[in-house]
């Protein structure tokens, strides 16, 4: 039992924080927002220079052979900068391919950054054999993906973006750093993964952890930036950070964030260690961290006063990202209902 980073983990954390702080600047992110929502150069350096695009993929599948703890460290750092990257879809798709018996060559291309994947799930998508029909909404970074891992509750396929019968419609999205697309599948041929249960489970667990960790990083950034502002900004002749009500609100943010931090790394560890707490932990982490982020981002706006609701200030990037994380991969109430069912031993 040692619930703190190892030296290696601390080093990874330092490296990725430095990487995103240096490269995922507000200016670059805003440029991506005005375009198709992805900073391609940043993604390329993330995959090639940092070598962490396959962080939680087994080495024999071309990854770094680390775990979800290290993945969470990466996602936390990316979230702290609201980086405009296709990280979520990449992680979910590559996890599915790696453990679900997917195409190793495609997996290699994903890790190398040559190919960008998105993940698209619909429980009741119509499939006759490997021919897919139907619509999948809200596919994160779907508009720029080269391929998709498409799943139902019990099957998974790899689908190329240019597959006949597939229409990808990019949508104007509130969080411009992770725009959604609608997939319309009209007799699309998918390449079936041999172990769909493993693929779906690995993809979703990794997705929950990525979102929770992004939320943690985002929430901490909201707190840090607001603390910084509060020490500079003078009102009524005093730094606003000297007003007790302001201090207490920042303290409340920290109380939530510290819990979110426990939640994220508990969930990542629980999966890495195949703990029987893993299912509970991912639902807890996803819902708690998302709510924490939303609250902190809302507080960031409020505590910045007028400047906080301008387009020019970064607060809205965090705020919109937080909202998106709340609804991606299941809303908070749904996750809590899963936990209630475990606690009560039922499924209401």
């Amino acid at each position, binding site marked *: 039992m040692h619930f703190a980073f190892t030296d290696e983990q601390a080093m990874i954390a330092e490296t990725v924080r430095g990487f995103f702080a240096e490269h995922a600047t507000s200016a670059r992110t805003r440029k991506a927002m005005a375009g198709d929502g992805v900073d391609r150069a940043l993604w390329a350096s993330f995959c090639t220079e940092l070598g962490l695009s396959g962080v939680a993929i087994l080495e024999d599948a071309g990854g770094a052979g680390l775990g979800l703890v290290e993945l969470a460290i990466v996602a936390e750092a990316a979230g702290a900068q609201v980086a405009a990257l296709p990280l979520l879809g990449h992680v979910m798709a590559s996890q599915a391919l790696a453990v679900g018996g997917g195409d190793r060559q495609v997996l290699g291309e994903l890790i190398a950054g040559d190919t960008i994947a998105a993940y698209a799930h619909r429980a009741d998508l119509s499939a006759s054999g490997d021919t897919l029909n139907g619509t999948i909404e*809200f596919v994160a970074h779907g508009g720029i993906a080269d391929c998709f891992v498409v799943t139902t509750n019990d099957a998974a396929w790899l689908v190329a973006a240019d597959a006949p019968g597939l229409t990808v419609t990019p*949508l104007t999205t509130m969080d411009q750093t992770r725009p959604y697309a609608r997939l319309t599948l009209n007799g699309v041929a998918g390449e079936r993964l041999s172990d769909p249960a493993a693929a779906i489970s690995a993809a979703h667990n990794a997705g929950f952890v990525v979102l929770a960790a992004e939320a943690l990083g985002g929430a901490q950034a909201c707190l840090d930036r607001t603390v910084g502002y509060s020490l500079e900004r003078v*009102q009524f002749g005093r730094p606003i950070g000297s007003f007790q*009500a302001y201090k207490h609100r920042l303290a409340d943010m920290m109380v939530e964030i510290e819990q979110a931090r426990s939640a994220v790394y508990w969930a990542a560890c629980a999966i890495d260690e195949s703990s029987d707490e893993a299912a509970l932990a991912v639902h807890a982490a996803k819902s708690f961290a998302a709510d924490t982020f939303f609250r902190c981002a809302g507080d960031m706006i*409020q505590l910045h006063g007028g400047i906080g609701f301008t*387009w020019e200030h970064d*607060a809205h990037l965090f705020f*919109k990202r937080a909202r*998106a994380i709340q609804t991606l991969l299941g809303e908070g109430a749904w996750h809590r209902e899963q936990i209630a069912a475990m606690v009560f031993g039922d499924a209401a």
Partner: protein
Amino acid sequence: MKLGFTPAEEDFRKEAADWLAGQMAGEFADIKGITKLTERPERRKEWEQQLAAHGWSCIGWPKEWGGRDASLAEQVIFAEEYARAGVPGRINHIGVELAGPTILTFGTDEQKAKFLPGIAAGTTIWCQGFSEPNAGSDLASVRTKARLDGDEWVVDGQKIWTSLAHVSDWIFVVTRSEEGSKGPKGLTFVMMDLAQPGIEVRGIKQINGDAEFNETFFDGARTAADNIIGAPGGGWKVAMGLLAFERGVSTLGQQMGFRNELDEIVAAAKANGAARDPLIRQRIAKAEIGLRLMRYGAMRMLSNTDHSRPDGAALTYKIQWASWRRALGELAMDVLGQTGEVTDGPAYEWGILPNLFLYSRADTIYGGTNQIQRNLIAERALGLPREPRGDL
């Protein structure tokens, strides 16, 4: 204590409702249902002139100045029917609800004759310049300077959050007119024509993609010496009186806008099945309760004639509606789910509910943040010690 209206008042309601409905079905059908403050300003000026032409512009004002001397009940009724008819909010609401009443209360006869007719007629649109980049919620920290140069005031400085300045004709500005003065002393309340080279207005884009607010820069801007309200250096008192007008009848019209938003949410919940979710049902009920309590809080505020002590309903109103509406925005998004996070077309422009979600984050900030409101309540209503100022 009585909530109902008299038959005569109900007749007045019918008259107003009929006229407004006729306008919104006829000549001004093209502006019905507009909710964004920045949409179609020129056409809305025409509408406000139409209101004036039919005697509906400033019904609570004295007849002498273009009003109807309408009773409180009639003002309440008109505000409700105005919003119920889907008429867009007054683009000149600063003129009608703030500048006009301030001039009526504190202005000279000459100033009344000069400014009130244009406001009543809808020909002169007003905006206000209170906040500054370093004095957001802190009027006593105003730095914009005014000095008397012969028979003119010359103003230099910068205001921010000047809502609708880009469509306005005149602005009233709180300035520091006594060099070296601090805090509430030495402030002067200056009225200026915006159409002059010394004033520049730049839009501020908000998080919803719209730009209702502005920065307004004053660089040797000029106005006649008698275009000030109150005495030179006596601006604080005027500004405080003006803020009190913000809690008038107009709140009821504002609430009807909230009603439309809540109705949209209820309709969306019915359409997508969220109406069956017990958690959503509880929140809808809370929103409904909150809106009703806002209405009756406003009624208490308007019925109160005892001005010898702080009016609890009035002092708590701003934080109440602002917090309520921010929560309403979150409820709207939770009802919509991810559908609320996407919009048709390439432009970053949002429908009523997602826009509510984004815009309402500003409600708890402008016009005195929630934090400032709590200070005011604690100090003025509860008699608790004032916050110490760092520099005073």
